[in-house]
């Protein structure tokens, strides 16, 4: 089968790229091993947040946030997106200082989170424990249902004329590009690598290996509780994140599960789960009376600097990467696809991608003094 563009991997980024390329009139074939949105795109926390991001990610996050406001027009559903506000909490003075530092930086990008000090957070958020000393609220941030986004992007891409083939595990890739999947050959002059964790294997095939690891966010959900907390909650350091959905359940995560990407199979782990449960109660003491009804994880690609690899290949003309979103790519997915479509069709994108260059791992000095680097547990 011949196409203009072949896409490997049907997460949010790949499905969005298929949609945007099809809208620009290109013949697109996307190959997905399982069902679209099965791994990192489908099992994550569902945060639609600019809050707390590395400055390198802010431009694309801001673009993505604009797209989320128009999601229903783009794909026929808002995937339960709600601008609930993202409240990032500080549990000590050093963390409070970190919130202020980020807020000052974000102002340069036109974002204006509201700092909530010690007295105000007591007065306005009685449900927090005394451990919480301050917070930074970005009201335009929110959340969506990750289980719905990638399938909806895929449906819209199909409606726009793209061919998305699920159950098509890639068994061979040759320059040119010729890709084998399910006993069939697919050829195209342009190849998009949106393979999540497995994107690292694709990059390595083209002589540009990256230090990627499987990242398995350890996620849990409680039984439904009376709704008391409408914001998405995060903390400086990222060791716990929570949100209460309108049904009342509290979804929270922290730490890492385990996986075998070769199968693929992934599982949460008890010890990180206990740690996350303890941290959750430390912030919201009333969770001590709630029950966890389910835990889960999936497989994402984690990079050492917690930033994705995104942009043109350094070895192979016609190859573009967008993978390794390090646990926070869900909200970016729609914009990543738009950017990839621009790179393919226009040769450039208005969205700055400098921080995502696949060549950066060879330049150790560039990584060392990054004061915005997120800790990868």
């Amino acid at each position, binding site marked *: 089968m011949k196409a203009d563009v072949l896409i490997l991997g049907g997460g949010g980024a790949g499905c969005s790229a298929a949609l945007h390329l099809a809208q620009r009139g290109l013949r697109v074939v996307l190959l997905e091993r399982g069902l679209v949105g099965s791994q990192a795109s489908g099992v994550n926390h569902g945060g639609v947040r600019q809050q707390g991001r590395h400055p390198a990610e802010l431009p694309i996050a801001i673009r993505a946030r604009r797209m989320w406001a128009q999601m229903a027009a783009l794909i026929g559903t808002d995937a339960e997106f709600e601008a609930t506000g993202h409240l990032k909490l500080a549990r000590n003075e050093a963390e409070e200082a970190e919130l202020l530092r980020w807020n000052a930086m974000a102002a340069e990008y036109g974002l204006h989170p509201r700092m909530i000090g010690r007295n105000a957070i007591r007065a306005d958020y009685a449900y927090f424990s005394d451990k919480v000393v301050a917070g930074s609220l970005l009201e335009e941030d929110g959340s969506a249902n990750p289980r719905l986004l990638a399938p909806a992007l895929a449906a819209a891409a199909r409606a726009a004329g793209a061919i998305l083939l699920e159950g098509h595990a890639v068994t061979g890739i040759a320059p040119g590009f010729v890709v084998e999947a399910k006993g069939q050959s697919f050829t195209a002059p342009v190849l998009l690598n949106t393979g999540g964790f497995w994107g690292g294997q694709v990059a390595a095939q083209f002589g540009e290996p990256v230090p990627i690891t499987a990242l398995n966010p350890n996620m849990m959900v409680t039984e439904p509780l009376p709704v008391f907390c409408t914001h998405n909650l995060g903390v400086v350091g990222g060791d716990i994140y929570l949100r209460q959905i309108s049904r009342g359940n509290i979804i929270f995560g922290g730490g890492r599960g385990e996986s075998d990407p070769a199968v693929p199979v992934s599982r949460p782990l008890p010890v990180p789960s206990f740690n996350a449960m303890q941290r*959750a109660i430390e912030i919201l003491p009333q969770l001590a*009376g709630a029950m966890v009804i389910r835990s889960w994880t999936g497989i994402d690609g984690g990079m050492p600097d917690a930033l994705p690899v995104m942009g043109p290949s350094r070895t192979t003309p016609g190859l573009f990467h967008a993978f390794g979103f390090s646990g926070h790519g869900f909200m970016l997915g729609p914009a990543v696809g738009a950017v990839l479509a621009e790179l393919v069709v226009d040769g450039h994108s208005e969205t700055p991608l400098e921080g995502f260059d696949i060549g950066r791992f060879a330049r150790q000095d560039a990584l060392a003094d990054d004061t915005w680097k997120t800790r990868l547990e």
Partner: protein
Amino acid sequence: MKVAVVGAGPAGVRAVERLVRAGLRPMWFEEGPASGGRIYQRPPTGFSRDHRALYGFEARRARALHDVADRLRFACDWRPETLVWNIRRTEPVLDTLTRGTDRRSETFDAVLLCTGAMDRVIPVPGWTLPGVTTMGGAQVALKTQGVAIGSRVAFVGTGPLLWLVAFQYAKAGAEVAAVVDTTPFATKLRPGLLWNLATFLKGLYYVGWLRARGVPVFEGAMPRAIEGDGAVRALRIEGHTIACDAVAMGWGLKPEAQLADLAGLPFRFDAVQHNWVPGQDAAGRTARPGVYLAGDGGGIAGAEVAELAGARAALALLADHGVFVDPLETSVLDRQLWRQAQFRGALEAAFPFPAHLAAEMEDATILCRCESITAGALRAAAAPEMNRGKAFTRIGMGRCQGRVCGPAAAEVLAASLGCAVQDVGRLRGQAPVKPIPVALA
């Protein structure tokens, strides 16, 4: 050698008996306060009904099992009121929770999962009304607490339990409003049932006893709705409305196989019992070394078989770990298990799961009661398989994690896709097996 047995029903008791006889002191986990399992569940301390009143024809069997179990407790690391809520995929570790507060992680060299079964239900309009329980729930209420679920109870479903529970309720003095068996009488005439003549005759006795006392019996009948406003008023079936204040419903059993799932065992769809079952050989060995299965948790076969299978799996476990086991004992058990399998096949055929009743469920019927998801919502989601159906609609995402609605939901989805039920797969298990407190940490 560190051996763990999960469950103290018929399979668990007979397994532990063999392990103790071989000189081991196994860890023995039971979710309830006492051994006996659901089938021989015991009343709380201080209740005075004797075994004859509680277990009828099975009194001797129950007594024997209870006596053995009571002796074994002292030869084991006995952990009652303990939920095994996780078994790790890559490490030989069980995560347990005792009395809701005491959390532990236990390593094992071998584990025998005897996790039992639960009712298989088909939602009908009104099934979420107070006063509607599963067949097993109705029986447990009677056995443990000596109470009936209502004063005028209708029983609907199919399978041996339907007739047994109705009989037990009538004997205990409750009014049986009707027995509605979705299986036609002719379907139940199976020569294979003669493989276990005693059980077959007991079944005939229950039916005859109920008929003789004028209990209305409907065979080959389909329930249409449970009517009432805040409480059960009637069970409506094709052509009849049966006044009642409680309904027990159940269409056979399904394995409680979440731990087998978390252990990473492969599952297969067993067409005879119409259930997904974890893979095992005839002796209870599984694809994961050190993990064994016995009893209904590995596929529905009933309490008699569970006792045999528990013993057999324990012997397999011992032999695999270098302990001498008497080949005569294993061959006797193997022969008994084979014989029972012939009976079981006939029994399943005699009381088939009415998949069409689930498949034809009205759009407005609540399918997932935890999340209030209707059959229509699942059909509209057009998911290609069950886990996608869950992702799109929240079906099976509530407290029970799809243990109740899963089988019926699969029928609804398969019928709407026009494929066989096994082709829509099954809901993936996730820890915890049952809810655990956030405060556990």
